[in-house]
């Protein structure tokens, strides 16, 4: 079973990915606060809030921003348990793990607050170290939460169309839109391939053979997808593609959108004022 570990892991990874994506679509379709906002205003506001978090040097401000994220999640009909799971795993927990050594004097010298004996070593925890780790963790957690809020409450095509409004070159936006669809196709192919290997081969005899299996899959995936691009282009042409993509839906911003945009602008202003004026 241990030899098959990489098959199991890849299968679990793809299944979790597909399951989460289905949930995300479900949240984006709900009628609630963030879902009701104009995608352009929502994207601009989230970017301003991300900048506010990035510039801030005040831990209370960062804690307040995280509380705002939770409030936005609840007001957007996102189940709090799902939101916490989605935002804490993997990046913030990984960040917490790598931030822990920073609390010790070895990495962050400063005013000692506690001493620990670990495996015969005497380690000193410093106030500056605790603050560094705390700052780092809450900043990462709040940033990830803002990104997840944007993704969960916006349909992918609306988000891509909003990018065009910000003058992102067409080649990037169109490629991103097509890439998004291909990812699902490829994930399905990976899942089916691994299931086929598991059901036919049973066990993979060695690490070397396992590496070959992965490489064949990646190579095979490229081979299959390369032949696809001509068919995709023909399909695009038959649907009226002339080299310039066209949008079918138009956005319309209302008073609430501008109010939200103004609030985000004020929060960013507050963060910059705290950082550059008060400090």
């Amino acid at each position, binding site marked *: 079973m241990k030899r098959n570990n990489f098959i199991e892991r890849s299968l679990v990874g793809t299944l979790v990915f597909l399951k989460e994506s289905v949930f995300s679509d479900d949240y984006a379709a709900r009628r609630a606060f963030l879902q009701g906002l104009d995608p352009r205003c929502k994207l601009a506001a989230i970017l301003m809030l991300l900048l506010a978090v990035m510039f801030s040097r005040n831990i209370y401000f960062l804690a307040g921003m995280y509380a705002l994220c939770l409030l936005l999640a609840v007001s957007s009909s996102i189940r709090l348990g799902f939101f916490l799971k989605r935002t804490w795993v993997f990046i913030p927990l990984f960040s917490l793990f790598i931030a822990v050594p920073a609390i010790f004097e070895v990495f962050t010298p400063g005013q000692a607050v506690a001493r620990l004996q670990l495996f015969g070593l005497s380690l000193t925890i410093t106030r500056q170290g605790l603050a560094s780790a705390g700052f780092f963790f809450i900043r990462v957690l709040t940033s990830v939460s803002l*990104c997840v809020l944007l993704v969960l409450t916006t349909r992918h095509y609306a988000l891509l169309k909003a990018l065009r409004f910000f003058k992102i070159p067409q080649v990037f936006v169109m490629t991103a839109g097509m890439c998004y669809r291909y990812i699902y196709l490829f994930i399905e192919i990976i899942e089916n391939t691994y299931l086929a290997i598991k059901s036919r081969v049973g066990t993979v005899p060695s690490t070397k053979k396992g590496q070959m299996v992965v490489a064949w899959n990646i190579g095979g995936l490229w081979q299959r997808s390369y032949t696809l691009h001509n068919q995709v282009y023909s399909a695009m042409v038959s649907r009226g593609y002339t080299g310039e993509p066209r949008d079918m839906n138009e956005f319309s911003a209302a008073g609430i959108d501008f109010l939200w945009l103004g609030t985000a602008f004020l929060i960013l202003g507050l963060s910059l004022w705290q950082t550059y004026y008060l400090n």
Partner: protein
Amino acid sequence: MHIPDGYLGPATSGVMYVLMLPVWISASKMAKKTLKAKQVPLLAIGAAFSFVIMMFNVPIPGGTTGHAVGAVLVAILLGPWAACIAVTVALVVQALLFGDGGITAIGANCFNMAFIEVFAGYYIYKLISGKSATASGRRVIVAGIAGYIGINIASLSAAIMFGIQPLLHRAADGQSLYCPYGLGVAIPAMLGEHMLVFGWVEAIVTALVVKYLQKQDPTLLEAVEEVSR
């Protein structure tokens, strides 16, 4: 390798966006000039391909697994400019559409993976493989070397970005505001894990996929000339 939001301060994030801007503009112009309309889906396929490569768990000795970035492989298959767009798009899709974060660090991530890794890996591959035949064993070994060096240079760049944070942003009492480790910790930690583990995973995947394509369909390894013709 993937830098999330909150690890880098505004100065580093801003400078990386500024540095990447001319690269993106050049890549966009090169793609427009060299890609025929019918090859546009190929860029999207390349982007999706570079995204899903990270989902393949590769077994490594000791019973554990790791995953490759695949940037050098995509550069070998599509050429450096198209690969630059493909990896950029994969990183943007990951950050924006799948909520993995890293929106403020997109410039830095693209600098490491879509620029440094892609161009360093591709030109090492071109330089050492020289005029050897598409199906030669030399190209398999060179692909592995290019993958290994490419990812290690990119990881060194990421380590420098992490390591300069305590120098650039520190409160008056000495506490760090972003990534808390200096160059003395960040460089050995990042380079160590990439030189010992992830570099080998990248090398194995890049070399074996090139070997597979040499056997199954060598024209796909020549497609880079077709794409940039």
